[in-house]
C-alpha cells in the first residue's frame, strides 16, 4: 500500500493539507502567458518558484517552457524587487527579443508588497521597454486561490492590450480556459465549421505541441498575436468558457469596451457542447452545419451503444472547478454516478453547482472545494467507486484501492496523448467515453471468471 497511513475514519483537519488537489497561482499565469505569440512569461520573485513552475509545465506538456525570473536573493527581499525587474527587462529584450513579456508575481514579491503596475510604468517611462514591445502584468499571490486563479488573472491581464478602434471586426472573442493545446485547436476547428470567425486567447496550440524538426524556436509559430489581442475590444462579443478560468477577462472587456460577454461551461461532454454550439450559432447568426450534427449524432450513438457499461457506475473525481462541473454533468447525462468530487480551488459556488447538477441523483454527493486527495481517498474507503478520474497523483489511490483510473486534468506526468487528442466538443466526448469504456472493460476482462470471459462485449 503506497498510502498505507491513510485511515478510513475521517477526522476534521483545520490546518493541515495532505496531498493537495491544487497548486499555486503563478504556474497558471505562466501557462496562460505561453498562449500569446512571441511572449516570454516572467516570474517576479526568487528563481525557485520559476524553476518549479517550468519543471511542472515541462513534465505535463513535454515541451520546452521558457520563462524569466527576477532571481531575488535576500537583498531584493528586503529592499524590493524593482531593480531586479528593471534589469531583467533589459536582459530579456536584449538576449531573447520577445514581442511581449508577461510578468506575474509570486508569494515573495507579493508579501514584500512590490507594486507591479508602478514598476512597469516606471520602466516604460524610463525607456527600459524597447519601442514596439509590450509588457503586461498580473498579481498572483499563492496564498489566494489556486493555479486556476493565476491562469484567470493572467488572461484578464491580456485584456490590458485591448485597443478599441471604433470599428467592429466582426469576430467573436473565444476564451477557452485552461485546456490542452489540442483542445484549443479543436475549439477553433468547431468555430470554423460553424463559420464563426474568432479571436481565441490564450491559444497555446502551436506553442505547446510544436513539431520536432531539428530547429529550436523559443517563440514557435502559434499563440494569439498582439494585434489580435488589441482587436478584442472591437469584437461582436465574447464567449468565456469556464467561470473560474475565463469569466474575469470577458467581464473586463464587457465593462471597459462594451463587448457583451456570455459565460459558458467548458464544452466537455454532450450538454455543455450543445450549449457552446448554440451560443456560437446565436452570436454569429449562423446555421449549425451538417458536419457538426453528424459529430453530435455519433456521440449520442456511442452513448446508446455502450450504455449498459456506464449505467449506475460510481465515479470519484478530482480536478479543477470548470472541468469538474462539465465532467460531472456529462457523467450524470450518461447515467453514471459521480459520488465523490473534490477540487483544491476554494469557492462555495463550486459546491453549489455540483449539487445542482446532481440534484436528481438518488444519493447525496460528497463534494468539497478546498478539498484534498487525502480526503477523497478516505471517502473512497468509506464508499468505494468503480472509477477514479483525476490528474496523475490519483494513481496512488487507484492502485491502493484497486480502482480503474483515468488521467484527466493537470498535471499528467506519466502518460502521453493529452496534448494531442482533445476532450472538448463532441469528438472530445467520444474520446472521453472511449477512455472510460476501455478502463472499465479492461477491468471486466481481468476480473470476470473464465466462464464469463467473452469475445463479444
Amino acid at each position: 500500500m503506497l498510502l498505507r497511513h491513510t485511515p478510513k475514519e475521517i477526522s476534521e483537519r483545520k490546518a493541515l493539507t495532505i496531498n493537495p488537489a491544487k497548486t499555486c497561482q503563478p504556474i497558471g499565469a505562466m501557462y496562460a502567458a505561453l498562449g500569446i505569440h512571441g511572449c516570454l512569461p516572467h516570474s517576479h520573485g526568487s528563481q525557485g518558484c520559476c524553476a518549479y513552475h517550468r519543471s511542472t509545465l515541462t513534465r505535463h506538456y513535454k515541451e520546452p517552457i521558457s520563462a524569466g525570473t527576477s532571481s531575488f536573493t535576500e537583498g531584493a527581499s528586503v529592499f524590493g524587487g524593482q531593480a531586479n525587474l528593471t534589469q531583467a527587462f533589459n536582459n530579456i529584450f536584449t538576449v531573447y527579443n520577445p514581442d511581449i513579456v508577461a510578468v506575474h508575481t509570486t508569494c515573495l514579491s507579493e508579501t514584500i508588497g512590490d507594486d507591479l503596475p508602478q514598476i512597469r510604468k516606471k520602466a516604460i517611462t524610463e525607456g527600459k521597454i524597447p519601442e514596439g514591445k509590450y509588457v503586461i502584468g498580473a498579481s498572483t499571490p499563492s496564498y489566494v486561490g489556486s493555479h486556476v486563479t493565476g491562469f484567470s488573472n493572467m488572461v484578464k491581464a491580456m485584456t490590458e492590450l485591448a485597443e478599441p478602434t471604433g470599428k467592429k471586426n466582426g469576430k467573436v472573442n473565444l476564451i477557452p480556459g485552461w485546456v490542452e493545446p489540442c483542445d484549443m485547436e479543436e475549439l477553433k476547428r468547431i468555430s470554423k465549421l460553424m463559420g464563426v470567425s474568432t479571436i481565441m486567447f490564450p491559444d497555446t496550440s502551436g506553442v505547446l505541441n510544436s513539431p520536432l524538426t531539428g530547429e529550436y524556436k523559443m517563440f514557435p509559430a502559434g499563440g494569439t498575436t498582439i494585434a489580435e489581442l488589441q482587436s478584442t475590444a472591437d469584437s461582436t462579443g465574447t464567449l468565456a468558457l469556464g467561470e473560474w478560468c475565463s469569466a474575469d477577462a470577458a467581464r473586463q472587456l464587457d465593462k471597459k469596451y462594451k463587448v457583451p460577454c456570455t459565460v459558458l461551461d467548458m464544452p466537455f461532454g454532450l450538454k455543455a457542447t450543445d450549449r457552446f454550439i448554440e451560443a456560437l450559432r446565436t452570436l454569429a447568426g449562423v446555421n449549425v452545419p451538417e458536419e457538426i450534427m453528424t459529430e453530435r449524432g455519433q456521440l449520442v450513438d456511442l452513448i446508446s451503444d455502450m450504455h449498459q457499461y456506464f449505467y449506475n457506475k460510481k465515479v470519484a473525481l478530482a480536478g479543477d472547478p470548470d472541468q469538474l462541473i462539465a465532467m460531472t454533468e456529462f457523467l450524470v447525462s450518461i447515467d453514471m454516478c459521480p459520488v465523490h468530487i473534490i477540487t483544491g480551488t476554494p469557492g462555495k459556488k463550486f459546491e453549489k453547482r455540483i449539487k445542482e447538477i446532481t440534484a436528481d441523483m438518488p444519493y447525496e454527493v460528497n463534494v468539497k472545494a478546498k478539498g484534498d486527495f487525502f480526503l477523497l481517498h478516505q471517502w473512497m474507503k468509506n464508499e468505494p467507486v468503480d472509477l477514479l478520474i483525476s490528474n496523475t497523483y490519483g494513481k496512488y489511490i487507484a492502485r491502493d484501492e484497486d480502482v480503474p483510473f483515468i488521467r484527466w486534468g493537470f498535471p499528467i506526468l506519466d502518460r502521453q496523448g493529452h496534448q494531442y487528442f482533445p476532450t472538448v466538443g463532441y469528438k472530445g466526448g467520444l474520446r472521453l467515453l472511449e477512455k472510460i469504456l476501455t478502463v472499465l472493460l479492461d477491468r471486466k476482462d481481468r476480473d470476470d471468471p473464465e466462464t464469463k470471459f467473452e469475445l463479444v462485449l
Partner: protein
Amino acid sequence: MGAAEKLVQWDPTDIKAELIKKYPPKVARKRAKQIMINEALENGTPEITANVRTIPGIITMRGCTYAGCKGVIMGPTRDIVNLVHGPIGCSFYAWLTRRNQTDPGPEGPDGENFMNYCFSTDMQDQDIIFGGEKKLATAIQEAYDLFHPKSIAIFATCPVGLIGDDIHTVSRQMKEKFGDCNVYAFSCEGYKGVSQSAGHHIANNQVFRHIVGENDEPVEGKYKINLLGEYNIGGDGFEIDRVFKKCGITNISTFSGNSTYEQFATAHQADLNAVMCHRSINYVADMLETKFGIPWIKVNFIGAEATAKSLRKIAAYFEDQKLIDKVEAVIAEEMPEVDAAAKDAQDRTKGKTAMMFVGGSRAHHYQELFNELGMKTISAGYEFAHRDDYEGRRVLPFIKLDADSRNIEELEVEADPERYSPRKTEEALKTLEEKGLKFKDYEGLAPDMEDGTLVIDDLNQYEAEKLVELMKPDIFCAGIKEKFSIQKLGVPMKQLHSYDSGGPYAGFKGAINFYKEIDRLVSSKVWSYMKAPWQDNPQLSGTFVWE
C-alpha cells in the same frame, strides 16, 4: 558526420566569445568569469567564478534553497513527516518529483513511509497578514494525531521568513508537548543564498543538530561506514547497498537515499564516511569528523571503474586483508558482465561526444561512465557548485565569503566530550595517505577534463542552445527544464538530476543500465527523421505523369 570532423571545427576561445556576444556588457563581463577554458596548468587549474547570484532575466537552470533542503536532502527519508509551512505550491512541486525510491525492508510492507504524501499548511492571506504560527502548530498536531510519526520536519518557504513566523520555537514546543516525536525546523526560504546549495547547507546543519547522535544503541557490523551524498534516484542506492552487502561492508546510514530517521540517529557510530556528492553533504562529513572523530574520503559509485576504485579505497582504509580480498573477489565477479556490456555498446558509442550540466557533482561523476563508453566530454559544468567543486579542495582558503554565503549559518561544532574517538591515529592516517588514500580531499571537475574543453558555471538556456548548435554534441545531459529545447535541436538529452526514466546507474549493474541507455539514445533512428524526404530536395526536378 564523424566526431573527429566536428571537433576540429571549433576553437574554445571563439565558442566562448560566441556565447557571450549577445549579452549587455555588464552581463557579458560576469558570464565571462563563469566560463572557463580548461587548461592543464602546472599548478592547478584556471580560476572560475561560482556560487554567485543568477542574473535577473537570464533563464537559469537553477532552483532555490528550499529545493536543495526539502527536495534534495530531506525528501528521500521515508519515516519523517515533511511538513512545508507556506502557500501550497512549494510543497506540491516537491511531491514525488525527484524519483527517490525507498524500501521499508525488514519493516515490511507496513513499515512507515510518508514519502508518497505531501504535507502543507497551505497558508492563506489571513495567515500572511496575522502570522501563521498558530496554523503551523495546529498542523503539526494534526499530523501527529493522524500518523504518530517518529519525527516531523518543518520547512519554511519564502513568505514565512518575511512575515517572521518563528518556526523553530513552534517546533520545539510541539516536540516537548509530544515527548515521543522529534520536531525541528529548517529556515530554508527560497530567497536565501543564490541556489539550491544554500539549502543543502541548512539541511546538513539541522540534521546534524537534531538527529545525528541521538541513538547510542550499538549498531552491529564489522566495517561500518556511512554513505553521504547519495539520494537513491532511480534506485542507485539499492545497487550500491547490494555491492556493500556482498563485500561485507555495513552501511549504517545513507544521507539520504532510502534512509530512515534511526539511520541518521546512529550515524555517529560509523568508522568511515564515504562521500559521493560532496557539494550537497560535505558539511555533515566535516561535522561528523569534528564531533565524533570519523574521517571521510571522497568516493564515486558512478561508473564501474569508479565503483571498483571506491570499494578498494574503503577496503584500504580498514586495513584488513580479509576485506581487501573480498572486495577484489566481488570486483572480479562483477566486472565480466560490465565489460561485455561496455564492449557491446562501444561499437556505437566510441568517439562520440557529450555535454553535462548537472547539479553539484553529477556533471563530474558521470564523465567516468562516458569514458567507459569511449565518449568524450567536451563541455561540462554545475548548476550550483562552489569553486572547490571545479578546482579542488585546495582552493577553499581562497574563496571569499560574500553576503549571500554569509547569511547561511555555520554550526560551531566541537568534539563530543564523551563520544569523540578518533577512528585512526594521526600516524595511521598519515601512513594511509602515503599509500595514496586521500582524506578530506577531492580534485574537482576541471583537472579531470581535457585541455581546451569548456567548463561553465550556472549555464543558462541561451548558452545551452548556442553550445549545442556550435559544438553539436552527440548527447547532452541536464535536467527536465532543458530536455525538450535541446531535443528540438535534434540532439538526444539525458536527464541526470532525477533521470527521466530508468536507473539505477550507480555501481556495476547501474553501469550496464547506463551503457544500454546511452547506446539507445545515440543510436536511435528518431534523430534521422528531422527532415522529411522532400526537404532535402525542395525543387521539383522532374514531373511524374500518371498514365
